C-alpha cells in the first residue's frame, strides 16, 4: 500500500509506539491520548494534534487497536481506543526494539 504517512516531528514510527503505550493503560479517546503524550513528555513532544488521528486509524485497521463509542468525562459522545492482544504483542516488540536502539544511540553519543 503506497500510503504516504504524514509523520509529525517524531522519529519515524515512534508515534505508533507512543500511542500504543499510552492506550495500554486503558481505553482512551483521541484528545486524552494527545494530552497524555504531551504532558508525560513535559511538552517536549508537541505536535500538530491532528496528526494523531491517521495514526490511530492506521493502528485500528491493522488490528492493534479496537475502538468503541462511549461517553467522555463531560458526558459527550467520544470514540475510545483500546489495545488488542495483537496490539499488546506489537507494543512489547516495539518497546524492546526502542530500548535497544536508544541504548545503542546513547552509548555512541557518550563515547564519541
Amino acid at each position, binding site marked *: *500500500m*503506497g*500510503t504516504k*504517512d*504524514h509523520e509529525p516531528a517524531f522519529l519515524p514510527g515512534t508515534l505508533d509506539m507512543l500511542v500504543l503505550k499510552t492506550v495500554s493503560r486503558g481505553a482512551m*479517546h*483521541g*484528545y486524552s491520548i*494527545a494530552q497524555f503524550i504531551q504532558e508525560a513528555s513535559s511538552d517536549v513532544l508537541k505536535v*500538530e*494534534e*491532528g*496528526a494523531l*488521528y*491517521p495514526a490511530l*486509524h*492506521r493502528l*485500528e*485497521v*491493522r*488490528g492493534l487497536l479496537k475502538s468503541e*463509542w462511549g461517553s*467522555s468525562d*463531560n458526558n*459527550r*459522545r*467520544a*470514540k475510545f481506543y483500546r489495545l488488542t492482544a*495483537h496490539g499488546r504483542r506489537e507494543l512489547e516488540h516495539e518497546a524492546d526494539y526502542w530500548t535497544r536502539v536508544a541504548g545503542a544511540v546513547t552509548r555512541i553519543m557518550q563515547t564519541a
Partner: protein
Amino acid sequence: MEFPTIWHRLRAIVRRRRLDRDLDDELAFHLAMREADYQTRGADAADARVLARRRFGSVAYLKEQCRDMWTFHPLETLAQDVRYALRTLRKSPGFTLVAVFALAVGIGGNTAIFSLIDAIRSRALPYKDPGALVALWGNVMRARLERRGNSYPDFQDWRAQARSFEDMAAFDGQTVTLTGIDEPERILVEFASAPYFSLLGVNAERGRTFTAQEDLVGAAPVVVLSDGLWRRRFGADAQITGRSLTLNARPYTIVGVMPPGFKGLSDTAELWVPFGAYAPAGTMAARGNRGFGALARLKPGVTVASAQSEMDGISRQLERAYPDTNEKRGVEVSPLDVELFGALRPALLTLMAAVAFVLLIACANVANLLIARSEARQREIALRTALGAGWPRLLRQLITEGCVLTSFGAIAGLLLAEGAVRALLATSPVTFPSFVTPGINTQVALFTIGVSLASGILLGLAPAAHARISRLSEALKDSSRGSDGRRSQRMRGALVVVEVSLAVVLLVGAGLMIRSVRNVMALDPGFDPRSVLELRVSVPRAAAPPATTAPGAPATPPEAVVRGRTLLDRIRAVPGVAAVALGTDLPLDGNAAAGFYTAEGMPPATAQTMPRAYTHRISPEFFGTLRIPIVAGRTFQESEMTAASSSAVVSERVAQRFWRGQDPIGKRIKFGALTSQSPWLTIVGVVGEVKYRGLPENPTNDPDVYLPFVDRNSQFAFAIRATVPPSSLVAPIRAVIRSADSSIPVYQVSTMEDLVGGQTSQSRFTMWLMGVFAAAALMLAVVGIYGVMSYLVTQRTREIGIRLALGAGGHDILRLVVGNGARLIATGIVIGLAASFALQRLVASLLFGVSTADLSSGVAVALLAAVAMLACYLPALRATRVDPLQALRQE
C-alpha cells in the same frame, strides 16, 4: 498486507458512510475539547476556535489521511475503472452492442462445447466413485489385436485370481420376450452377476438385487425390474416383490425394483437377470465360448496399468493351462469412462479448438473496434498520461474496459450456451447416454469466467500495444492524422491476417469433415440400403418341433421354416413390398456372431491365422433383396432350406484366401477345426463382401458365410425392399404378422438407411458443428475485414484526394485499396493453410479418406478469398467517389 488489515478494509467498503460520519464526530469532539480547554484558560469563544484549529492542523487533509487508512486501493481503483468503462461504453451503444454480440457468440460457443466435454467426464457417470471402475474385455492377437467378449470359465478364473480389484461382475445385454402380462413384448435386459449393482453403487429402490446364490448356473430364476418397466407394465404395484413374469417362456420371480433413471451400463436395460441364466449350462462351461463383458472396481491405489499387468500374467497362465482355447488370448483393462465416452472425446476436443478459434476471431474484431476508438481517444489518453497517470494505470484501465465488455459477452454467452446445448442435444445425430446432462454448473461457470477474463485481457492489450506504438507524446501535438497512420495500419493489418488465417483453418477443417462424411456415405457398403425396411421377430420356441440337426438326417421340412416362409409370403403380399427376405441377422443390426472354420486342404493354422467367419442363416431371396452381388455360382434353392443341407454361400474373401485363381464352387469348408465333428459344407455360391458390422469398415476383416435358414432360429429379421417410403409399411406389416400369430413380438424396426446413418452419426455431428463454427468464423472475419478496410479508406481520404487531384483515375484508387486488402488476405491464407497442415494430424482420427491437400480445402480458401475481397471492394468503391476538394479541405 496482514489479514486484519484486509478484513477491516473490505468491511469498510460496505460501511463507508458510517465510517465517514464517525470520523467527523471524532475530530469534532477533539476540537470541541481543545476549544473548551482554551476557554477555561481565558480565551474568548472565537479565539479558542481559531487556536484549536491551528493546533489541530488541516481538518480536510487529516480526514483524507484517515480515510486513506481504510481504503482498499485495488478495489477502489477497480470500481473507479469499471465505472469509467461503463460510462464510455454507454456513450457508444452501437459499438457496445456489436462487440457484446460478437463476444457472446464466441464465449457462448465455448461454454456450450465445454459443458458437453464436462458432461462426459468420468465423474459425470452416475455411479459410486466412477474413476475406479473398469471394463474387462478379452482380446486376441491375430493380424492385429482384436477385442472379444469373455467366457465364463475365464471370468471365474480372473475373479478368483486377480488381486487388483475389489470385485468383478459379468454382464451382457440381450433382448428377451416378456409374456404373462398383456401383450408379448421384446424388452432389453441385462444379464448381470450379483456384484454388478454393488460395483456401480446402485441399490434396489424396492426389494433387493441378486444374491451370490442366485448367480449360480441353475439357481432359482429371479429378476430385478427397472423403474420404467415397473411403472409401464406393472402399474407401479407396491407389492411387486414375489410376483412373477415370464421371459422366453420361463417363469421368473421379481425380487426388486431399481431406482428411477438406472438403466444399466447399456443405458437401455429394463430388467436384470442373474448371470447364471445367461446361457445353457453347457455353453457357460465352454472356455472358448466368448461373448460378454465384465465390470470391475480397482482397489484403492491400484492403477489401470498395474491391474493390466496383473491380468496379463493371469492370461499367460491360462494360455499355458488351456492352449486350445486361450492361445494368444489376453485381457484389456479399460477405464469405464473411456468405454462409454472415449469415442466422443476426440470429436469434442476438436470442436473445442474450433470454437476457441471463433472466439479469437471475435476478439480480433472487437480489438479492432477498440483500437479505432482508442485512436479517437488518443488525445484523452495522452492528456491523462501527461497529467500523471502512469503507464500501468492506463494499461489497467484498458484491460478493465476489455473485461467489462467480455463480462457482458459472458452473461449473454451463458444464456446463449444454455439454449445452444439444449438445441444441440435435441438435434444431435449422436445419442448421448441418458445420464449425460450438460448444463451450467460450477465447473462450466468457472470456465466461462476464465475465458471471458482471458479475452478481456487480450482485448485490453491490443489498444494498449497500439497506443504504445503510436507514441503518445506525438498525439498531443496532433501533428497530423497521417503521421502514425502507418504504424496503426500495421497493427490493424496484423489483426486482419490473424482473422483470415483462423478462418482458413476452420473452413479447411469444416471442408475436411464434410468430405469425410460424404466419403463414408458414398462408400459402397456391399448392399443397397435404400428403401429397405428391416424388422425383427421372435417366434415362440415352444411352437417349433424338436430340432433335427444331425447331419445327414432325413430332410423333413421343419416347422419354423414353414412359419418363417409363411410370414415371408404374407409380407410379400403387402402392397408396396417389392421383395422380402429373412435372415438370422441383417447388415449393421448388431446381431452378427462369428466362429472359426477350416477350408478343405488348407495348411495347418495357428490361433493367429485360424480362419474366422461371421455366419448368417438366410432365405434364398436374401442377396436379391439386399442387392448383394452374386460373384459366382448361385444363391440357395428352396430344396436346400433344411437343417440337413450342406450348401454354403461364402463372401469373396473366403474364395480369395484359399482358392485364388481356382473355381471356388464345389470346394468345401467346415466350422471348427479339421478334426471337429461338424459336417463339411459345399460352396454353391460366392457373393460380394458386405460392410456387415460397421462403416466405413468392419471392425475385423473376417469374411461372411451364409447358410440356409432353418427352424432352430426362432429369432430372425425381415429385410423388406419397398416401392413406397419404407416407414409407411411398418403398420401393415405388423398387422399381417399379428394376424399370423398374435404372440409374435416385432422389434428393432428401422430403415436400413437409418442404420447406415447411425454409423456416421458422430462424423455428422462433428461436421455439422464444424460447419456452424466455420460459418461464424467466416462471417466475423468478413465483418472484421470490412471494418478495417473502411477505416483505412477514411483515414487515407486526404491522400486519396491528393492522388485524384493529381490525375489518378478511379481505377488506380480501386487498385490501391483492394491491393492493400488483398495482400493482407493472401498473407492470412498462406499462414492459415500452413497451420491447417500442421494441425491435420490432430484430427486424423476423425477423418476418413481425406487429407488437407483435398480439393475441399481449395474450395474453402476460394470461398474465403472471394468474400474477403468483396469486403475490401465495397470500401474501395467508396474511395473512388472521394471528392478531392473536400478531402483536401478536411484538414
